[in-house]
């Protein structure tokens, strides 16, 4: 087929339809290190502007932490730049094993296996462990990588309404004949920042002889008193069979993910998970940086404590300013705008005020639930938060939404 005559026209039309539906994603170029303040070139070609970053997953502020950077440099010097191999051929160094042991201790599990990313961990774990006789029952708001991983697995796939324990129990009963029933959930849901009801889930699993899978990517390092995750927060450490998580958010923010949990399930992944078997090993400097992150988070809870305080301060400030927030306890604080166009304009106006926060709208979130998802970091100082709150107040007043709730905002702007 000639690319020029047929294929190019087809893909151009596809891209045009994405553009005309208002769904075209564009990158904003950052010209600084990741942190509470970043320099952004936006629109493309414009001189870089210093803005306060309210949308990174840099929860603990470790992405550019000097100790982490130093450790990564040392890793680079001592163990080289890359492994040029998958793990089981010649891609495993002592530091990979050391990091896996540290993660096992931190998460309170039996064993851990690193993956190139958590997307890969989720892509591999289900197919490696479960088959046609089993059923995976997922919360309807789990992350896209879990959906993809489930689809790669031959097990029956089902869902339960978001955090609805009665519906989950119905599903457990409906699928009683299956060999293994696996309850699949995120720890902290990235859309609303709410926490899974893991204690109730673990109880249901016990009552119905089911297994529990948890993706704690938006929790590892800071949820729970010691930051071990949602299972710590909910008092169910040791009762979760599989945990996947990422090193790409709070834990230094570079890359890498893992499957951690029951020894035999982790071993099944080592034998069968395709992203582990067929994708390159995590680079030495990243492993070295992550080991330093493990030291930092194990040594002190100061950063997760500061993050918690920041989140509470931010929530209080925005609520008092009259913005409509999704309730919750996590550092993900969605400011609800409901209307997609309003969310886009709001984000643009915030940027003019020196605040970087992106608008999320359908199909990323359900129709009529557009928002600016703000995310707190331990790197934020009070002055950042005060400037942010003032900007939200100013832009909120400009659009006349302060003090308004869903119905009133929808009445004013439509869905």
């Amino acid at each position, binding site marked *: 087929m000639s690319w020029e005559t047929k294929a190019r026209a087809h893909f151009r039309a596809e891209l045009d339809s994405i553009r005309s539906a208002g769904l075209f994603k564009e990158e904003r170029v950052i010209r600084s290190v990741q942190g509470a303040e970043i320099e952004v070139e936006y629109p493309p070609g414009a001189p870089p502007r210093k803005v306060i970053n309210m949308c990174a997953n840099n929860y603990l502020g470790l992405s550019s932490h000097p100790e982490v950077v130093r450790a990564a440099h040392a890793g680079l010097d001592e163990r080289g730049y890359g492994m040029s191999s998958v793990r089981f051929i010649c891609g495993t160094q002592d530091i990979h094993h050391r990091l896996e042991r540290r993660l096992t201790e931190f998460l309170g599990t039996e064993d851990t296996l690193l993956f190139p990313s958590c997307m890969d961990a989720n892509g591999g774990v289900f197919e490696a462990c479960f088959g046609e006789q089993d059923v995976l029952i*997922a919360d*309807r*708001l*789990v*992350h*896209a990588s879990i*959906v993809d991983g*489930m*689809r790669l697995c031959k097990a*029956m*796939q*089902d*869902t339960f309404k978001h955090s609805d324990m009665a519906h989950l129990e119905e599903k457990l009963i409906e699928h009683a004949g299956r060999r293994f029933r696996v309850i699949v959930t995120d720890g902290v849901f*990235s*859309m609303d920042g709410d926490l899974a009801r893991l204690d109730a889930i673990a109880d249901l699993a016990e009552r119905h002889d089911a297994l529990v899978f948890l993706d704690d990517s938006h929790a590892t390092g800071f949820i729970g008193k010691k930051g071990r995750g949602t299972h710590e927060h909910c008092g169910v450490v040791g009762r979760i069979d599989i945990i996947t998580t990422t090193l790409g958010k709070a834990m230094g923010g570079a890359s890498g993910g893992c499957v951690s949990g029951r020894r035999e399930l982790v071993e099944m992944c080592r034998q069968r998970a395709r992203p582990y078997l067929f994708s390159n090993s995590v680079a030495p400097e990243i492993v070295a940086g992550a080991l330093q992150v493990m030291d930092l988070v194990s040594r002190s809870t100061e950063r997760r404590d500061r993050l918690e305080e920041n989140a509470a301060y931010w929530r209080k400030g925005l609520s008092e300013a009259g913005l409509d927030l999704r309730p919750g306890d996590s550092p993900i604080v969605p400011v609800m705008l409901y209307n997609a166009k309003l969310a886009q304009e709001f984000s643009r106006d915030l940027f003019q005020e020196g605040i970087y926060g992106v608008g*999320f709208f*359908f*199909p*990323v*979130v*359900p129709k009529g639930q557009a928002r600016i*998802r703000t995310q707190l970091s331990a790197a934020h100082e009070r002055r950042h938060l005060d400037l942010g709150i003032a900007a939200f107040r100013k832009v909120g007043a400009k659009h006349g939404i302060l003090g308004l709730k869903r119905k009133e905002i929808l009445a004013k702007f439509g869905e």
Partner: protein
Amino acid sequence: MEQVRSVRVALPAGARTTEEELELLEAAFRAIVDMHYEGGADWKTAWEALERDGWTLHADLCWRVTAQRGHDFESASGRTKADALGQLLRLASLDATEGCP
């Protein structure tokens, strides 16, 4: 153009049939026609090739349902139409929204 021939089968006088039963009858006749006139010996070659590669095979007639919405496509199969649709519904429920990174 080649003449398409069809076979009409009379149902007993006064027979009350549901839409589903008619659909089933049509599917069953179509399967017989496909298997007898179009399958030929071709399937045997594939079957034997797979067996030579160590597969244990099993073939079954079933319902296959598909759903298309814009760019999204889902398909499922089942012994009954209800089974297939139930499976389709479960698959579609996985992707209610794209979700956030």
